[in-house]
């Protein structure tokens, strides 16, 4: 069934189809219509879930932590300062290996106050141990939410599904809504390995020593570092799992096939643009324009940002002439975040392209297709001439 709806409604519909059982909701622009739609689904009896209107974002994730630990499928959503407020819990959820999905409707973080779009919010949480997937359009939003539940419950690592505030959350696009029976077949009911309850009493997330310590049977249990390392190695393994989940989704629903990134005209591209989120679509227009000028450009619209798909990036980008990373977030005082990750992934390649980095769109600063074209042309011309990273697009507009 095709509908013409907003990105927020796409997300809410994905959550409904995934049969989330506990929803924690605290309002923050531009996420609010998502949680409002969920309340309508619940009140109208379309979604059998407990809707908990919490008093803060920190509590929103606390509710989800309590709920998933007790064996219910949980969901929450937030943006910007809301995500930062729950940051302690973001780290906790991953360390506790709790499966859940959270939508981050990307928005710039204060200070200064901004309600408009950029990626600094979710990017600032990239080291928390969550899986991060960025959707490019409404179809990806609804499909990714469903895939995310399947993925998180298989690998026991929480998943952030990120999409651009306003550009996606509030715009309307046509997209297909999967059938409930098919989603039910794709996504079995939730079962948590350490379900809290009287059947097998456990104390979850107790204080853990640096060193290993024997358990009641005399076997050495892991220490803190072993447990954290396990999250790290299993995050890496999650890439393979996600690829499998995506191919199963494609087999059932007919969509997917590029879980890590969308490749646009990459096969013969000499210069590849890399970006996260909806701006990828706009960069495709720039790529088309540049091709007409004779510049063999291509786009790698990255979807999976964490765990960072280093192998994929290295194999995609090594051997190219140049790579231009466009992003809406940075590591202040350093370079763009995605740029840093990309550069590191390419470091050991024998054939390294030149790398350029452009920051744009912070706090919702406008950008045009001509900006992308200009940046790529500029990069092609400069080639591997050393330059100061990052460059900036749209300043003083």
């Amino acid at each position, binding site marked *: 069934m095709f509908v013409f709806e907003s990105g927020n409604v796409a997300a809410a519909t994905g959550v409904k189809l995934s049969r989330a*059982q506990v929803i924690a909701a605290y309002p923050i622009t531009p996420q609010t219509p998502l949680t409002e739609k969920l309340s309508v689904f619940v009140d109208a009896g379309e979604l059998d879930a407990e809707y908990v209107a919490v008093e803060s974002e920190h*509590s929103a994730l*606390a*509710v989800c932590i309590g709920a998933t630990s*007790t064996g219910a499928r949980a969901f929450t959503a937030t943006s910007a300062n809301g995500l930062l407020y729950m940051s302690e819990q973001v780290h906790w959820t991953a360390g506790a290996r709790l499966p859940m999905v959270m939508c981050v409707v990307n928005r710039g973080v204060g200070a200064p106050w901004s309600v408009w779009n950029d990626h600094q919010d979710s990017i600032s949480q990239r080291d928390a141990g969550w899986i991060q997937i960025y959707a490019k359009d409404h179809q990806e939003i609804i499909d990714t939410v469903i895939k995310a539940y399947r993925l998180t419950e298989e690998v026991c690592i929480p998943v952030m599904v990120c999409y651009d505030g306003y550009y996606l959350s509030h715009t309307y696009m046509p997209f297909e809504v999967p059938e409930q029976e098919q989603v039910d077949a794709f996504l079995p009911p939730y079962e948590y390995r350490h379900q809290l309850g009287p059947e097998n*009493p456990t104390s979850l997330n107790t*204080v853990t020593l640096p060193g290993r310590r024997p358990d009641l049977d005399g076997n050495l249990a892991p220490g803190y570092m072993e447990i954290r390392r396990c999250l790290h190695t299993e995050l890496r393994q999650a890439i393979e799992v996600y690829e499998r989940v995506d191919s199963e989704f494609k087999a059932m629903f007919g969509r997917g096939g590029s879980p890590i990134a969308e490749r646009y005209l990459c096969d013969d591209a000499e210069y590849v643009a890399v970006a996260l989120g909806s701006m990828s679509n706009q960069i495709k227009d720039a790529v088309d324009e540049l091709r007409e000028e004779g510049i063999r450009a291509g786009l790698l619209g990255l979807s999976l940002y964490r765990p960072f798909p280093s192998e994929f990036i290295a194999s995609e980008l090594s051997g190219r002439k140049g790579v231009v990373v466009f992003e809406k977030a940075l590591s202040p005082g350093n370079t763009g975040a995605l740029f840093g990750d990309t550069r590191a992934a390419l470091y050991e390649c024998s054939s390294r392209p030149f790398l350029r980095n452009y920051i744009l769109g912070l706090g919702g600063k406008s950008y045009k297709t001509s900006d992308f074209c200009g940046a790529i042309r500029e990069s092609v011309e400069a080639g591997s001439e050393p330059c100061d990273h990052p460059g900036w697009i749209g300043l003083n507009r």
Partner: protein
Amino acid sequence: MKEQKTTALNLTDEEFVFPGNRACAGCGLSSLYRIGLKAIGRDAILVVPPSCLTVMQGLYPIASTQLSVLNVTFASAASAASGVRAALKAKKNDHTRVVAWAGDGGTADIGIQALSGAIERGEDFLYICYDNEAYMNTGVQRSGTTPRGTVTANTAIHGKQQQSKDLPRIIAAHSPAYVASCSAAYPTDFHDKIRKALGMKGLKYIHIHTPCPTGWGIEDRLTVRLGRLAVETGLYVLYEIEDGEMKLSSPSAKLLTKKKLSPVSEYLAPQARFKSLPEEAVEALQQEVDAKWETYRSQMT
């Protein structure tokens, strides 16, 4: 049907927490936690934020509590408990009890927002705040419930200058299903109040006074005696609040008809944390307590 009052004789000898745990010798919390779990039973999920109880739970991979426990971040006891309850509801389980156990710091200070929200939402669980009157687990720093004049690790020279929060009354102003005040000196009273609370729907709040030998600077053996003195001097009051009505529990109700209560100085004297309390402060405290009991007498007799 009125439930039989619990005594040492009829209280179950089944234990729900193992010995050899990390609670200090003579810990007031440990004493009440043990009795409280007898009232709660095994069909329960406990929620515990950072506090002395976290340490008592044990170091991975061994736990001291025989029930399922969810250890959570400091500010989130009440919201995590809300999540546990939501999951149980989603799974159509209406029998498993949800009980949060948090310290005074985790309730009056960092945890007050989540608790306030939980009551406002009408969440269904039991919240027990054990009040040893400071952040004991981190080395005796002052908290919102630390009494005025108390010497703590960060009010070491002049003692705490501010008054303490009357936490049960703050909670009562939210109109939860039930508010009660208990003490480590009256464990069977605590047991029965838990039983009563667990028979109700909605948010039930029980505040327990748990003397702390380590933080109060008293001999280990005086935990229960000091707790009793706190009540007999009228400083700490045992009561219940239901439907807006406050009812004194019998150890405190007895004091209504007593001519003179034990002087507060008798309670303060054995505690090193009150060593630097000047005479005037003790007198002022005595007057405060006397005035409070005058009010109770005029309202309740």
